[in-house]
């Protein structure tokens, strides 16, 4: 804060910015707006914006590289196969935005309209937003500390004109830090249906995922369930299975039993998944007969059932 005048009523006072001694103070406008005392107004603005979004799903994992972005993208693709379902995919991995590549949208730029930022559309009913679209070159590094990342996430939630959306899927970076806290905080007044947590079978992943589950409990974020990715490797030549990441402590199945959380499904590691992602195409379309596709579709159906059984809360207006 810059120097305050004598007789300053205090930034939290009802007279803040309005008293005689406030005249000429460089902070007068700030105080008069109530910014010193009130919670972030963006939370209410985002609540308003989210009124046109029926279901909001966060895709989380404590661990990196388990397939969050791959899963988020294919959840979006799967839901959007019904052309009557409007799907939005928001990538809040500010430092490592993978979604543009996986969705075949590298090089696309964001446009401004009167009603805010326009998402980039893959299909008529599938819109995407990512910091990747704001970079002038794919090599640009986003070397930002927490507060600046939080500001970007706020803008994504408040300023993107998603329109009428059935499902908003939020892809997150690994961890339990600024991005996750900000997403939950800014969406706190809007209803988040829940989190889908991605893991791989080995204990090194599970130990981070247990922390993520604890994070969800701490911030009261419902957990839709856990997806175990890369469960087994299926050889494209002989079709036999190998456990590349052995579940030495029982994998996600035992973890979910211990923590009483639904296991939504296990997705095998099909090398074609990575290739589809590199090409920016839907693996569900590229390899419709793959066991991985069947697994994805079953998991997507379970998520839809969860959202159907837990409709968004209606606001009840009490007349005074």
């Amino acid at each position, binding site marked *: 804060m810059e120097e305050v005048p004598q007789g300053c009523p205090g930034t939290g006072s009802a007279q803040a910015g309005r008293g005689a001694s406030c005249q000429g103070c460089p902070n007068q406008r700030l105080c008069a707006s109530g910014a010193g005392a009130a919670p972030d107004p963006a939370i209410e603005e985002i609540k308003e914006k989210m009124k046109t979004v029926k279901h909001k799903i966060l895709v989380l994992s404590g661990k990196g590289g388990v397939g969050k972005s791959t899963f988020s993208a294919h959840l979006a693709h799967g839901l959007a196969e019904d052309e009557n379902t409007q799907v939005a995919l928001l990538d809040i991995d500010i430092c490592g935005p*993978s979604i543009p590549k996986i969705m075949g949208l590298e090089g696309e730029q964001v446009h401004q309209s009167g009603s805010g930022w326009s998402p980039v559309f893959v299909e008529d009913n599938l819109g995407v937003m990512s910091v990747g679209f704001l970079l002038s070159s794919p090599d640009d590094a986003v070397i930002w500390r927490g507060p600046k990342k939080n500001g970007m996430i706020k803008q994504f939630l408040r300023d993107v004109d998603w329109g009428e959306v059935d499902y908003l899927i939020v892809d997150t970076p690994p961890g339990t*830090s600024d991005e996750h806290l900000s997403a939950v905080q800014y969406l706190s007044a809007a209803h988040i249906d829940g989190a889908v947590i991605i893991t791989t079978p080995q204990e090194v992943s599970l130990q981070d995922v*247990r922390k993520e589950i604890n994070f969800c409990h701490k911030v009261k974020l419902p957990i839709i369930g856990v997806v175990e990715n890369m469960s087994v490797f299926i050889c494209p030549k002989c079709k036999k299975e190998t456990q590349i990441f052995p579940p030495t402590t029982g994998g996600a199945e035992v973890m979910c039993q211990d923590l009483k959380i639904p296991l939504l499904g296990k997705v095998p590691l099909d090398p074609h998944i990575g290739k589809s992602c590199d090409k920016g195409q839907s693996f569900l379309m590229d390899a419709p007969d793959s066991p991985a596709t069947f697994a994805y579709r079953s998991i997507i159906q379970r998520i839809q059932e969860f959202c159907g059984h837990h409709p968004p809360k209606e606001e009840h207006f009490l007349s005074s």
Partner: protein
Amino acid sequence: MEAAVEPGNLAGVRHIILVLSGKGGVGKSTISTELALALRHAGKKVGILDVDLCGPSIPRMLRAQGRAVHQCDSGWVPVFVDQEQSISLMSVGFLLESPDEAVVWRGPKKNALIKQFVADVAWGQLDYLVVDTPPGTSDEHMAAVEALRPYSPLGALVVTTPQAVSVGDVRRELTFCRKTGLQVVGVVENMSGFVCPHCAALCLWTLSSRGAWRKVKTSSGTSLRVLPSPHSSP
């Protein structure tokens, strides 16, 4: 916990290597651990500093979970993972009450702990300090580089996998290295391919057989090493 800054705690460390990747899950912690073990095998004294505060993997990889951190006059004593005391380790994992406890901190608190890890751990005489980092180019990375800068880090080892999504993030990490003046020792392509134990077929993860990163120029132009997928992981 605030401790007085000890200027001499890294004075006995000869080389510092940061293990970085823009991408998660490519094997930074695995490679940091394997690097430390290989250096020990070559007769070196090695320290590992694990600055992945949200997902500290190194204690488990070295079977050191649950160990306690003690204090000495110079600060915190790192945990020795072997009887010969040739590998020492510091990780937030040792400071948690339970292994499932989540570190839900915003940037400034993470920065403060990393500064403490650099200044307040009594590393003693080390040939190498390997610094394992989380994925990204954010608070932890900036804090580690800023705190280590006075000690002239040897450089950065950047880890990737062949997929284009990994390579994309690694290109950004190389930009980070350039902008922060960190010399890139080289790039390691991990999990290059997988040999099926049933039919011995070599499976590659990408469209191009050698990975898109081949087109990436490292700032130092040094060579890279390619590591095939392990049959099993920790």
